[in-house]
């Protein structure tokens, strides 16, 4: 046990009962190369300080719970290996741009509320009472498959300065899910999603910073999803202008 090398992890902490701004706390602990950062945080909680608070669940990069800023970059803590972070020190903070509930736990309600606004669901088109699956070719699946991999981990929201500057912005993941459903051959909800797409807080708050796509652990490419939709939104804007009465 004691033979293992140690590393310092600095965590930014905050508690609503403490009448003070966030503070840093350093923990020194033994680690293994193939241990994830999440496991190191669990070690701190189990052995050193039970009050350290963070979310986690699947520990395999699929549930999207464990996002935090690691050395200034949004990451899934279960997806980083200590071997890659050594020799440290590692700085861990709550995801940027979100209100902090406590320590590494952020308030994600805003994004959850935005999902229905962005129409992040399929609107079944034809006969909904059918008991047979409809058909969709692999090529049709490929049209939206990339955008459908979003685990709602919110890393992209922490990467997007426009979300930080303009909290109304629907944001990368919600808009990627909008594009995911628009591109699904089974969907009939494009018209419903137009209002959100065309809004200022829809695609137009994005200035193509592109960092969302860089940090996404699932390769979703929200920057593409959003900016593709700008063209469509602009087209509809002009058509509405030229053909009054086309809309509403």
């Amino acid at each position, binding site marked *: 046990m004691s033979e293992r090398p140690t590393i310092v992890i600095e965590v930014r902490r905050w508690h609503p009962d403490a009448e003070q701004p966030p503070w840093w706390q350093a923990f020194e602990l033994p680690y293994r190369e193939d241990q994830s950062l999440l496991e190191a945080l669990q070690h701190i909680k189990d052995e050193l300080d039970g009050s350290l608070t963070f979310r986690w669940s699947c520990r395999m990069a699929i549930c999207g719970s464990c996002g935090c800023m690691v050395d200034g970059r949004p990451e899934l803590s279960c997806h980083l290996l200590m071997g890659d972070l050594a020799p440290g020190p590692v700085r861990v903070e709550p995801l940027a741009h979100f209100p902090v509930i406590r320590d590494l736990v952020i308030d994600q309600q805003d994004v959850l509320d935005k999902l229905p606004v962005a129409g992040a669901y399929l609107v079944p088109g034809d006969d909904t009472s059918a008991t047979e699956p409809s058909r969709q070719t692999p090529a049709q699946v490929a049209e939206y498959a990339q955008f459908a991999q979003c685990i709602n981990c919110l890393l992209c929201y922490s990467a997007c300065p426009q979300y930080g500057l303009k909290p109304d912005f629907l944001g990368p993941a919600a808009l990627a899910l909008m594009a995911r459903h628009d591109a699904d051959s089974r969907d009939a909800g494009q018209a419903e999603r137009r209002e959100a797409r065309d809004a*200022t807080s829809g695609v137009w708050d994005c200035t193509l910073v592109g960092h969302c796509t860089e940090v996404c652990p699932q390769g979703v490419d929200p920057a593409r999803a959003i900016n593709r939709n700008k063209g469509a939104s602009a087209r509809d804007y002009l058509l509405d202008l030229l053909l009054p009465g086309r809309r509403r």
Partner: protein
Amino acid sequence: MSRRLRRSHEPPFWLLFGAGGLLAALILPAVVLFTGLIAPLSGRCGDSGLLEHARMLSLLSTPIARLACAGFIALLAWHACHRIYHLCHDLGLRGGAGLRWACYGTAALVSVIGLVLVMGLPHP
């Protein structure tokens, strides 16, 4: 959860920005290369070589060339002003509607002036 969704009026500006950006990416380096390097090497200070007054006027003698020149200037202006507007926002400058008018007003002004100037050019 009450979320106001206001329709954005950015599309026309974004289209102009995009057109200007594309134009700039395609030919701006070449144009700067001309005014800043090729022309100076071609002769002395404007009274001879590629930048001769009469030559310039003859280059811009056809309506197409004039329109292209005015369009180039206008689109670049829209491109630049749109970005500058957003840059101000990004840097935390809260100009509100005033900033918007200043930025896009400048672009419009530059476009109009450019157009008036090329149209007024004398024929060689």
